[in-house]
């Protein structure tokens, strides 16, 4: 049985006066692509933000590598080995592709250079536009830059929020291929609205509805369950 890398236990999160997460629980296993699914506003993005500490949990616990990270500051969580690709990609618009990656690189060791080489081979466009301002890249290139930036350090877990959002089908294909490739080196927790993409690359799923986990299981189980897909994702 595969080891749990990340575990959320009855996580509650408030943003201002709103009680967004009201009991999220799931595990992400080493080497898997776990997908968080649910309708718009279900709490998927907040779940990722809670894990990385941008909207800290007000109840429950988040455990990463058997360490309680619930109350840790964002930079500490990131330094433990969690990379984050937000929904809007979070590109530093006026910095070049090179500078965007340099901000993320903690040290220029042989290992990080090898990782950089690896992501540049994975996303050749980044090498091509190395000196171009991040704000001038296309949507797909921004997504690739955001993923490369999160991956270039020693990331044991990548949190990727809706990587297919707003992208053309051909670009989505490329992003999917990259995620499958990155999976060989790291564990991935994905938020995705595009069920086709999620079902293609996901190993396991967690369904979130109204801020609560309603089901967790192997992706195949969800693919075969039309009733669940219809009820929680509005498909079929």
């Amino acid at each position, binding site marked *: 049985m595969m080891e749990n890398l990340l575990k959320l236990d009855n996580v509650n999160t408030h943003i201002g006066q709103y009680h967004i997460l009201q009991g999220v629980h799931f595990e992400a296993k080493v080497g898997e692509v776990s997908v968080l699914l649910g309708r718009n506003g279900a709490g998927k993005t907040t779940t990722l933000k809670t894990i*990385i*500490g*941008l909207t800290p949990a007000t109840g429950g616990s988040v455990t990463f590598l058997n360490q309680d990270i619930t109350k840790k*500051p*964002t*930079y500490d969580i*990131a*330094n433990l080995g969690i990379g*984050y690709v*937000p929904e809007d990609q*979070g*590109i*530093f*618009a*006026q*910095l070049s592709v090179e*500078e*965007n990656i*340099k*901000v*993320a690189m*903690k040290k220029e060791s042989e290992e990080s250079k090898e990782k950089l080489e690896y992501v540049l081979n994975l996303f050749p466009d980044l090498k091509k536009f190395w000196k171009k301002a991040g*704000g001038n890249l296309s949507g797909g290139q921004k997504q690739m830059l955001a993923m490369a*930036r999160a991956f270039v*350090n020693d990331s044991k877990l990548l949190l990727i929020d809706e990587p297919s959002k707003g992208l053309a089908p051909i670009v989505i294909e490329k992003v999917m291929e990259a995620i499958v490739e990155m999976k060989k080196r790291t564990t991935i927790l994905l938020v995705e609205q595009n069920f086709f993409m999620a079902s293609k690359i996901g190993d396991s799923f967690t369904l979130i509805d109204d801020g609560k986990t309603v089901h967790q299981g192997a992706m195949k189980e969800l693919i075969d369950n039309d009733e669940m897909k219809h009820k929680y994702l509005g498909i079929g």
Partner: protein
Amino acid sequence: MDLIISLVINGLATGMLIFLLAAGLTLIFGLMDVLNFAHGGLFVWGAYTGIFSYAYTGSFIVGIVVAILTGLVFGFIMEKLIITPVYGNHVQQILITLGFMLVLQEMIKVFFGPNVVAVKVPEYLAGSWQVGDIIIIKYRIFIIIFGFIVFGLFHYILTRTKVGLIVRAGVMNKDMVQALGINIKRIFLFVFMTGAALAAVAGVLMAPYSGSIYAELGMEYAILAFIVVVIGGMGSFQGSLFAAILVGLAGSFMAYYVPYLSLAVNMILMAVVLIFRPQGLFQAAKG
């Protein structure tokens, strides 16, 4: 032509002093989203501690170093005690920093006395050069060169070093910088202390320029610095330099040609910029 050159030198010198004050203010706002109305207090404390050290030791350089140290120490204390509790709340920031500005101003009177202090230009910077019919005052040239060196130094730090890269990234998207494993609070403290030191240096350089210092001077210059930050674009370092020179030159020329408008010229400039380009001339991009 001679007159024009003299007015340009006057304007540039005033502009550079305002730039030193505004540069810290704009970085503090751009990165930390903090409206610091106590910035003028740091300016006047730099002026007093620097000038008193200068008077005591006879060395203007010691005065500048003491002013920098004053700025760093006050910046550290202020960020930790005054600013940290009010991050993210502009109304509270305005109230608490305005209050602290008054405290700093009154403390000057407690520690250094309420009277105006006369300040002389250091001997080696006093006097003037005559080039043809133009009289060039040495101290003004010193301020202009000092200002450009500071600009060059900070431009280098911001564009060529890792910490500068992080500051620029932080101005665009603080959350993302943290998510990349960087303790943004440490960067905030560094920027705040640097901004405070720049304000203090502006204070000690301004003292011989104006010939006297008094406690209320901070507020007067802080208003000019705020105008410069608004014109240049909140968060833009280059914008501050450009706007400070613009304000300095406009003040210098208007004072000569249309004296009755010289006090209003900065407000008019700011109003024009706010009408046609409310984000400022060089707005720093937010992520």
